[in-house]
């Protein structure tokens, strides 16, 4: 019931798909940041973040996504977002971050893009 962020990782072939459920905000974004760092440490370079069950994202959450993109790009990798609902797309569009991230409706498409 309480706003939180549930994070699960599954693999589609070689690519980790990070399933997020809940809110990405100042309280929860650290968990997401740590997951991305751990994936990079484990040698992953291409990552899909599934936003389908994300209810809200605030500026801290956006900062964490941009930070994740930065880290992955530093390793010549790629990051794609999949399944973002209308609210998340609205946030990305209004801030201008839709020009920064690859955003796909479909997870398969997101994986294929990397």
């Amino acid at each position, binding site marked *: 019931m309480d706003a939180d962020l549930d994070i699960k990782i599954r693999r589609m072939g070689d690519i980790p798909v990070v399933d997020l459920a809940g809110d990405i905000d100042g309280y929860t974004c650290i968990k997401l*940041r740590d997951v991305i760092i751990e994936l990079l440490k484990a040698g992953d370079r291409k990552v899909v973040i599934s936003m389908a069950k994300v209810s*809200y994202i605030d*500026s801290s959450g956006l900062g964490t996504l941009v930070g994740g993109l930065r880290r992955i790009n*530093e390793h010549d990798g790629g*990051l794609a977002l999949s399944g973002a609902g209308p609210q998340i797309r609205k946030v990305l569009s209004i801030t201008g971050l*839709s*020009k920064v991230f690859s955003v796909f409706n479909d997870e398969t498409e997101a994986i294929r893009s990397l």
Partner: protein
Amino acid sequence: MARKARSVEPTPAEALASVDGSSERDGWKPEDLKMFQFLRGVLNHIDIAYVATYPPQECGIATFTRDLAMAISKYTPFSDPVVVAVSGEADIEPYPKIVKFQIRKPNPHSYLDAAEFLNQSQISVVNIQHEYGIFGGQDGEYILDFLKKLRKPAVATLHTVLFDPYPNQRRIVREIAELCSAVVVMVKMGKQMLIENYGIPPERIVVIRHGVPNVHRVSATVAKKALGISDRPVLSTFGLINRGKGVEYAIRAMPRILEKHPDALYLVLGETHPGVRNYEGESYRKELLQLVADLGLEQHVRFNNRYLMLEELISYLCATDVYITSYVNRDQIVSGTLAYALGCGKAIVSTPYLYAEEVLSKGKGMLVDFRSPDEISQAVDYILLNPGFREEMEARAYRYGRRAAWFNVAIDYLDLFHSTRSLPKAAPAVIPSRVNPNKTDRSKTA
């Protein structure tokens, strides 16, 4: 259409992280500058001016303006917001840097100067926080002079929408709607009233909820322990105290509440509204203290007579079992304090003023009649005795509060501002001179 992530060589999240304080800055490297510059280039830019009262002035609108400006600035790290603060005649408040210009409330020339200041600036859109009392002239009509001189697109947030306004009050709101690209109200009922009672075209009216802090819930038990009030059922009311809050009715409910909950504690948090203090001093608070003494409630009603910082306020709200708003005026179209209680996921007992009636619908709170200590005590008693009922109510309140978190409200405002900025100035609305003749002007009464 989806786009491929750009392979921007270096770094950071800094552009956003630097304004939201996230720990991304820990990873700052010199090459992050390139990412910073990249983000500066791609993020949407909009410079917003807010015309309103502003902290350290102590009033709900000042707090609202600060919260809104801060929430929006987190999404617009490369923009330069400006506040035009409405101040009194003589005192220059020690304002923060964001305040670039002051309107002296009673001085009509000051409004024209402010408009000219904004006309000459880089500002993209102007947001006016409107309440009759914060601007000068009869019913705050000087704000119209400001709007007439302003050459930038404007959006007005209406904090007061009277069901049955005086003619001059109606005129002012109608003219504001004519001179602005849009007016914002915080509940659907407000929009309905503007359409029916003021004749404002619906397409000019946008409903955006009152923002609430982003609060992750902690158990009341933990919060109470931190405040040294463990094991007591805690009721609370907060805000700038004034007669409109009807605190005496909640106090009068306490003897009945204590019959079943002998350790109950009612916290009245906040100082007397400065505007009220100016004309009647602390007489209302003294009356409340006398009432507490007369009823022998000294151990069960506690006043905290000072302006509470947000963190402290949230601590008290988290420690609260039942939040009470007992306003006596049905016309109240918004209540920041009630919005905050929802944000904290509290069980709420409230009188049915317009804002409460709408936001507490569908089981998000219990409504009781105006000026009715009996009904307040019954509702509080029911909540305290039925934990399952209470938990469901708290969950519904919290879900509402999440949707109204400032970071969501900021996006709605940004969306509106972006759509407004393309307009050089409001295209005049066609507002019929008289609408709904049944909504007749009333005679002014004391």
